[in-house]
């Protein structure tokens, strides 16, 4: 199977290269109108079909790798290092993306899949699709070249083949880990599509903004995948790493957040272009940067430039990525310089307080956030270069700098929807702000009364202050969105006579994108409330003898025993804790520690009891070697479940926004 896989990759590379070359030549011939021996349109069609065939070839390679994992073919180094015989089936699948070579193959396969769908739909706009398909082929050539020359997944083990593999990294043996990386990759790869369309549209001087409509679904689906990927990663970190938090500002986490930020900025500002023909250059550069940023994470960690918990293996592919990024950047700059006249704005902005300018500010903040993260991630390299010594730029830096920016963003989330398009002055739209501002002050009073005060203990507590601001802004934003829904629903209900709920439903159907977007905003706000809860985290560590007690918040943990267990994949050791609340036994928790047989690596399994107000999060830290008694660390983390609920709402909103809006004609017909 190794031979077949390698061969399939080679074929895929050849096809992608042909797709790129033939596509480029055909488009060049069509653009210049030169005559040639073969009709350029037929040449372009063979290029397109080469792309489809390439997808089949990459799929065959991916299939070969999965097959080999399940066949326990340890003659393949990759499988030897990332699997073992007793690994559960789901994690054998995960072996495809648990190592560098496999992840790259997954990346190439996803890119092939996206390209496949795109090439099947080429009739929408043959020429634009030909450009986009050729650009995608160029990206594909890069990934396949790495897979063939630098990181071959089917490389064979030297010498005798061992009986069993070394197993999957225990950190990755967790349900989220089976889906988190593919979702994240779907997010990364997905941005290649709007990138290819944007670059293609610029190259061919595509008239109008229809390419945005064509790629809108791609961009939104990609954004959804990236969002889900990031949050599943957070949930995984929370449930597996056992330090009580979910976000450590690790370079790889940062690397996933950066394209998310620029992608979010793109989703917003592209509306300006679609609706009003403004900010064309800006949008082009936003999507260029987003695409480049999707490559940056791999460049940084695999290149060994920055240290990260994710950098399982440093290798030469970092240089490949660096060169490719520079190449892409060069192409982008070159095309832009050549064609920038095509991007001149059709009209200008009316005022500082219109919806248009709120998008500008939204972009400003999102991009500043992206810059801050990039800066913090790269500063150690800069510092080493200038001062000769490395410094750490860790969580304290990011929390200090990024949190105020995030809060400002939430503020804009609330203000934006209140401003109509093309507004001319603030005076005329003042009344839109009444309800949110009233709610804002009521929440301030409410929070202060509830004891959320920034001056606890006589000193200014920054965490509490930020939490207060976050809660207050959240309340105002939700009010703004609710008011917006009610306003629209009233118009509908005036015309159709339907009740409020029916009208809200009709309203959403009428403009799924806008109202779905508002639902996403509410989701974001709920996530922020959950994040702000971290200001009030509490933790406690204690050695628990049999029957001894450990109070935390409203709970008391009582140790009722600790025991051991074993299965073929791992041995485990866990504590049995009874949790009392108000003097009554409420539930039991079993925090666990595992030692995986194949890798001989230990891993904690956190016990989490989640209620809307807080999570009780209990870690078994191991037995004290002197006394033999278990050491338990317990955290009381307020509002964590709000984060996951908010993400669910964000997904719901995105799905709504993805559905087509009801056409006005249909509505009219229904009423007549």
């Amino acid at each position, binding site marked *: 199977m190794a031979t077949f896989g390698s061969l399939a990759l080679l074929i895929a590379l050849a096809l992608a290269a042909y797709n790129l070359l033939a596509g480029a030549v055909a488009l060049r011939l069509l653009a210049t109108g030169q005559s040639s021996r073969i009709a350029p349109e037929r040449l372009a069609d063979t290029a397109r079909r080469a792309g489809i065939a390439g997808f089949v070839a990459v799929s065959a390679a991916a299939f070969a790798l999965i097959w080999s994992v399940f066949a326990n073919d340890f003659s393949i180094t990759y499988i030897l290092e990332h699997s073992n015989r007793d690994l559960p089936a789901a994690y054998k699948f995960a072996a495809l993306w648990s190592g560098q070579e496999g992840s790259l193959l997954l990346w190439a396969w996803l890119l092939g899949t996206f390209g496949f769908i795109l090439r099947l739909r080429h009739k929408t706009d043959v020429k634009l699709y030909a450009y986009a398909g050729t650009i995608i082929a160029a990206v594909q050539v890069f990934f396949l070249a790495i897979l063939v020359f630098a990181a071959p997944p089917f490389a064979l083990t030297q010498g005798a083949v061992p009986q069993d593999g070394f197993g999957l990294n225990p950190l990755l043996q967790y349900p989220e880990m089976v889906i988190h990386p593919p979702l994240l990759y779907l997010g990364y790869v997905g941005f290649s599509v709007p990138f290819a369309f944007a670059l293609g549209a610029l190259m061919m001087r595509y008239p109008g903004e229809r390419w945005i409509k064509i790629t809108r679904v791609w961009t939104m689906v990609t954004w959804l995948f990236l969002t889900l990927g990031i949050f599943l990663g957070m949930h995984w970190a929370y449930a597996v790493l056992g*330090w009580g938090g979910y976000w450590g500002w690790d370079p790889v986490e940062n690397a996933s957040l950066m394209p998310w930020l620029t992608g979010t900025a793109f989703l917003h500002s592209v509306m300006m272009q679609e609706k009003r023909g403004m900010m064309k250059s800006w949008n082009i550069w936003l999507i260029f940067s987003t695409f480049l940023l999707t490559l940056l994470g791999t460049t940084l960690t695999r290149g060994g430039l920055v240290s990260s918990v994710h950098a399982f293996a440093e290798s030469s592919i970092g240089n490949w990525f660096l060169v490719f990024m520079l190449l892409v950047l060069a192409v982008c700059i070159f095309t832009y310089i050549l064609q920038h006249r095509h991007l001149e704005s059709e009209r200008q902005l*009316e005022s500082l307080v219109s919806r248009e300018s709120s998008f500008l500010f939204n972009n400003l903040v999102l991009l500043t956030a992206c810059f801050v993260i990039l*800066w913090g991630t790269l500063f150690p390299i800069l510092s080493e270069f200038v001062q000769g010594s490395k*410094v750490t730029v860790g969580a304290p830096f990011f929390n200090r700098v990024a949190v105020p920016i995030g809060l400002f963003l939430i503020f804009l989330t609330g203000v934006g929807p209140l401003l109509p398009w093309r507004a001319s002055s603030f005076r005329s739209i003042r009344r839109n702000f009444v309800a949110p501002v009233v709610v804002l002050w009521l929440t301030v009073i409410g929070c202060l009364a509830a004891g959320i005060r920034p001056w606890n203990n006589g000193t200014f507590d920054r965490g509490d202050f930020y939490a207060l601001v976050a809660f207050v802004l959240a309340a105002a934003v939700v009010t703004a969105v609710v008011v917006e829904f009610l306003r629209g629903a009233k118009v509908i209900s005036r*015309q159709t006579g339907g009740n409020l709920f029916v009208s809200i439903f009709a309203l959403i159907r009428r403009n799924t994108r806008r109202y779905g977007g508002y639902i996403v905003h509410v989701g974001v706000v709920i996530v922020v409330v959950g994040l702000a809860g971290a200001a009030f985290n509490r933790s406690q560590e204690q050695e628990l003898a049999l029957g001894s007690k450990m109070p935390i918040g409203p709970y008391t943990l009582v140790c009722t025993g600790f025991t051991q267990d074993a299965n073929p994949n791992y041995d485990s050791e866990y504590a049995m804790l009874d949790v009392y609340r108000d003097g009554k036994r409420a539930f039991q928790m079993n925090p666990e520690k595992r030692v995986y047989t194949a890798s001989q690596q230990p891993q904690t399994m956190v016990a989490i009891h989640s209620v809307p107000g807080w999570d009780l999060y209990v870690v078994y830290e191991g037995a004290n070697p002197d006394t033999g008694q278990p050491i338990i660390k317990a955290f009381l983390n307020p509002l964590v479940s709000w984060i996951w609920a908010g993400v669910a709402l964000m997904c719901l909103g995105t799905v709504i926004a993805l559905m087509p809006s009801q056409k006005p004609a249909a509505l009219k017909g229904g009423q007549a």
Partner: protein
Amino acid sequence: MNRSQAAVFWMRACQALALAVAVCFSMGATTAGARFNDLSHRLMCTCGCAQLLGECNHVGCTESTRERNELSAAIAAGQTNQQIFAAFSAKYGAIVLAAPPAKGFDLIAWIAPFAVFAAALLGVILLVRRWSAGQSAPAVLHNDPATLALREKIRRETGSVNNGGF
């Protein structure tokens, strides 16, 4: 409310405020545990795991236990935060501090984000002002009969208030 009542009210208010401040400051003495928690989240574990010292919990870490003991000892010995940070960075290098110190070249790390934000904000405001200033001249509408007829058609098709469409 007459004058003397008002005076009494303000007197009471001041007393209450003073009391509140006094209570706050008397609570200000943080416990050693809280200080350990704070400082261990401002230092890194140096084993290469790239985690904060207070959060490094992976089994078999060769560094974090020792570092934590050193931190506890330093707190017990009554050292100030500055002394503790200085001692740690002397021993392990600047890399042990979870965020760069706000002095020297490292100050740039702290300033750049805000400088960039301020510059970008200024830029956007200026840009918007310039754009909206260019709009001051009222656009001339075409009033020839053909255009007016088309406008009437458009108004019908996009639903004016009169026909109740959308």
